[in-house]
């Protein structure tokens, strides 16, 4: 069996045991199970995998989903961290305003001083901004590199998203 076929079979088996199939798909897969030993073995493998993950200690899973996860970092923000960030932002703003004021005082004869300082700040900011954009693009590329290998068909999205769990089994 080709690797892709096997991947596809493992994925089907996982969706079957996880109730992530429509009733029609589940019935079709069970008909396949009646004749296809590889599909039966894929179901057994999927169960072993799910059991192994489910058997992991809670602290391991908690670490896996919070410490390394950018999503968790975005969603979980203790008040203390937010407060600290607010103070840092306020301090940075005060420093920028003070620097801006000093430069204006030093160059008060020049009416365009404010414009110059502003232009200088903007150019510095733009440079940083562009490097940030490059970094972000690199990061997104690496994250999506292997996801690009997979094209999720519309019917699959419909199958797992367009029907509630209860519908799937009650209809059959």
């Amino acid at each position, binding site marked *: 069996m080709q690797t892709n076929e096997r*991947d596809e079979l*493992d*994925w089907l*088996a*996982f969706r*079957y*045991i*996880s*109730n*992530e199939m429509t009733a029609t798909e589940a019935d079709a897969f*069970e008909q396949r*199970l*009646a004749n296809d*030993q590889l599909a*039966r*073995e894929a*179901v*057994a*493998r*999927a*169960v*072993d*995998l*799910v*059991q*192994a*993950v*489910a*058997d*992991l200690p809670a602290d*391991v*899973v908690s670490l*896996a*989903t919070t410490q*390394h*996860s*950018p*999503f*968790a970092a975005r969603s979980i923000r203790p008040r203390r961290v937010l407060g600290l960030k607010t103070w840092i932002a306020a301090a940075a703003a005060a420093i920028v305003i003070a620097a801006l004021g000093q430069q204006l005082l030093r160059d008060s004869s020049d009416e365009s001083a404010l414009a110059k300082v502003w232009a200088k700040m903007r150019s510095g900011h733009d440079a940083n901004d562009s490097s940030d954009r490059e970094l972000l693009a690199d990061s997104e590329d690496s*994250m999506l590199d*292997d*996801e690009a*290998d*997979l094209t*999720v068909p519309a019917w*699959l*999205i419909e199958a*797992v*998203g367009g029907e509630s*769990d*209860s519908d799937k*089994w*009650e209809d*059959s």
Partner: protein
Amino acid sequence: MTPADDSRIDPAVVAELYERHQAELRSFLIGVLRDSHLANDALQATFTKAMEVGHTAMRESLKGWLFRVALNEALAIRRRQQTRDRALQRVAWSRPDASESPVESVARRETVDVVRAALDELPAEQRRVVCMRIYEEKTFAAIAEELNLPLGTVLSRMQLAIRKLRLKLEQDS
């Protein structure tokens, strides 16, 4: 002893089949029934049938025959007990099985260690989806909503993670 008894499969052969295939069969039955106790019932019925009519299965692979009998037993149990409705309930994947032997228990712990290491190697975004789907038992649709991601992205991440975890398990087994 009747002539029919003479043609029955040797109990030693059935015992060997049990030793060799019962763990995989049991996992398969849990996948079909989503209930470890019912899976045990189906497993017992399967080997009872093997004792009774296993001699008729010699033409094909005995393993394949056992799995086919097991599927039929599981579907019959599900019909009788209307377990499709029960399958909607929370699936107790991790409930320790009383019938698990010490050897199986050790093997299971080893598998858990391998999976833990394999999870660590996954990209964070894939690991997150795996844990939410399997450990937290959220649907793909719910995960997509919670992470504010397209459903297709969540499915891709899960599919990639399954592939990597399976390869890792195969390498270490």
